[in-house]
């Protein structure tokens, strides 16, 4: 981090009579009690972040006058590269957009291609996709539940978060072969069936998730200091949040009852599951933590429902060896852990897409920061950044 002090520095002015300097100092204290603006660069490099976000904040004392996020340090140009890849190859790329919930990134793109091709994955594949999507959500949120404590100064929850997430990552790894980048979806189904004993293992792991949620509820939500640091901090009004495109848990924490798993175009098997969409009316950092905690539990319940209902059968439908997607275009969106993830895919009938617009959640979630950070104190900047919960790869794509 570097600081630039815009106030005039008198330290090197030896020519000036010390007596007059004293007068000057007195005058400054007595007459103008304000300090000059200071421009502070938060980032771009920080050991605790995976990815680089730079925040140019102009400070008046401890208060933020204006904040300007500088993004693009991780821009990899995926929208351009997709035009040079075939459809099956694109899923490898989009794994890297939101790297904490890679599997969930694949789902809308594969759904778009499947709808254009008019093929449908078999029911068992749909169930496995749903389970893995929800496991991604749990893994992402468990990290958040721990990391949020870390950002406001409590180290312990971070250890719990990482420890419990490891169980989920092990599950994902044993099913897909990849801890972070499964690349498990195929157009028309999945790469493999689940390994033997996986369902029982998954069922017992869900109990760990419930226990972890209880731990976080007592340890973090019940903590007075945490509540004092988060309550009333970074309030997003619902209508403004929607106009900025803030989505997912961030918007639901502002009281907007909107979840694409329930309200969007039906996808996977969510219409067959019984789940509650959690909202909170406060819209502050505390509410965002609370909503994500409830959603973690809800996801674990949904996984259990899927485990009960998962049918036998094939996991891959019949598709041509060479995937050619008919001419057309489609907008496919899903409720990802970080919010609305969507792809606008334009196909010209070839083996690769003509244009893919990638709508990632964090990009829009972060775009509200210039408004949200105005007038808050410096420590609250960190609270707000942590509670919005963005992945840098999801901003920069």
């Amino acid at each position, binding site marked *: 981090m570097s600081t630039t002090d815009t106030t005039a520095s008198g330290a090197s002015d030896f020519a000036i009579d010390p007596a007059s300097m004293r007068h000057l100092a007195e005058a400054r204290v007595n007459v103008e009690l304000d300090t000059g603006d200071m421009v502070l660069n938060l980032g771009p490099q920080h050991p605790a972040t995976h990815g680089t976000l730079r925040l140019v904040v102009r400070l008046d004392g401890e208060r933020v006058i204006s904040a300007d996020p500088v993004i693009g340090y991780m821009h990899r140009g995926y929208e351009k590269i997709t035009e040079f890849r075939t459809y099956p190859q694109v899923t490898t790329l989009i794994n890297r957009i939101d790297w904490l919930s890679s599997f969930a990134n694949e789902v809308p793109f594969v759904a778009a291609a499947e709808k254009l091709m008019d093929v449908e994955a078999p029911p068992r594949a749909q169930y496995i996709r749903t389970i893995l999507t929800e496991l991604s959500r749990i893994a992402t949120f468990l990290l958040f539940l721990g990391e949020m404590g870390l950002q406001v100064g409590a180290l312990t929850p971070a250890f719990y978060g990482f420890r419990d997430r490891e169980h989920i990552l092990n599950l994902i790894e044993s099913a897909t072969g990849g801890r972070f980048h499964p690349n498990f979806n195929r157009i028309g189904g999945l790469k493999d069936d689940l390994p033997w004993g996986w369902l029982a293992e998954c069922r017992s792991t869900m109990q760990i998730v419930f226990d972890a949620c209880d731990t976080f509820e007592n340890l973090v939500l019940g903590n007075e200091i945490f509540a004092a640091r988060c309550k009333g901090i970074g309030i997003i009004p619902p209508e403004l949040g*929607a106009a*900025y495109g803030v989505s997912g848990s961030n918007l639901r924490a502002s009281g907007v009852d909107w979840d694409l798993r329930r309200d969007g175009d039906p996808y996977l098997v969510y219409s067959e599951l019984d789940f509650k969409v959690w909202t909170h009316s406060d819209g502050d950092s505390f509410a965002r933590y609370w909503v994500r905690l409830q959603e973690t539990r809800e996801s674990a319940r949904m996984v259990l429902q899927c485990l009960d209902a998962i049918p036998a059968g094939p996991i891959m439908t019949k598709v041509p060896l060479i995937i050619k997607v*008919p001419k057309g*275009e489609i907008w496919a969106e899903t409720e990802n852990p970080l919010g609305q993830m969507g792809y*606008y895919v334009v196909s010209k009938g070839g083996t690769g897409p*003509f244009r893919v617009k990638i*709508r990632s959640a964090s990009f829009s979630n972060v775009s509200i920061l210039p408004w949200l950070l105005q007038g808050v104190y410096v420590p609250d900047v960190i609270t707000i950044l942590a509670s919005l919960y963005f992945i840098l790869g999801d901003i920069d794509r």
Partner: protein
Amino acid sequence: MPDEPVTPEAGTPEAAPPALPDAPAPVPVSAGAEEILATLNSALGDAIIEAQPLFGDVVVRVRTDAWLRAGEVARDQLDCDYLSFISGIDWMPAPKEEGAEADGDTSTPAQPTEMTPGAAGAAGRFQVFAHVQSTTRKWGMTFKADLDENNPSVDSWVSLYPGANWHERECAEMFGFGFVGHPGLRLLFLPAAFEGHPLRKDFPLLARVVKPWPGIVNVEGMPETAAVATEEADSGDTNA
């Protein structure tokens, strides 16, 4: 810009191009799409050039000068309080064609060689398109507008949706579009010294120019193309 605006009719999808017989059948118009089209028709009138229901979404192409008005109608009369994205499309085919370098450069999948418009049509090369949604009515729609090829410029949506700010900055740097009324079209992702607009089709993917792709990406020419994957998964193995 076509001379005669076509009034959209619900339930009359665009004539499917005959070139691809395996194209899926047009989706039926949902009740929500009918209401959206009716409201847009009465509010925008002949500003709508073409409209088409598409996989539960509605794609509406409006005249360029009605772009801001279309957003207003969507926000105020159709309750679309949520801005999903604003972006652009370059309909020009990429200069590199399939098989143009017949000496075996298969580094990219086949791309079309002639310009064909997408859903709801296109008058020229550039289009701006935006997706808005309603958190209360749970529906969404896509707007498109044609832009002039030499001076692509359109009204900014920042006054309607503050979130349009970043989307339009991205669109401006990636396609070179202008947004009238935008508070500051600074570069968003690209470094300050960057020249060109990367998502235009005539902008080459420089990594491929510097070093050709070593493997075969375009597998279309391979002899086994007629084969069909017959992966019959082992049924009955639920291992629960």
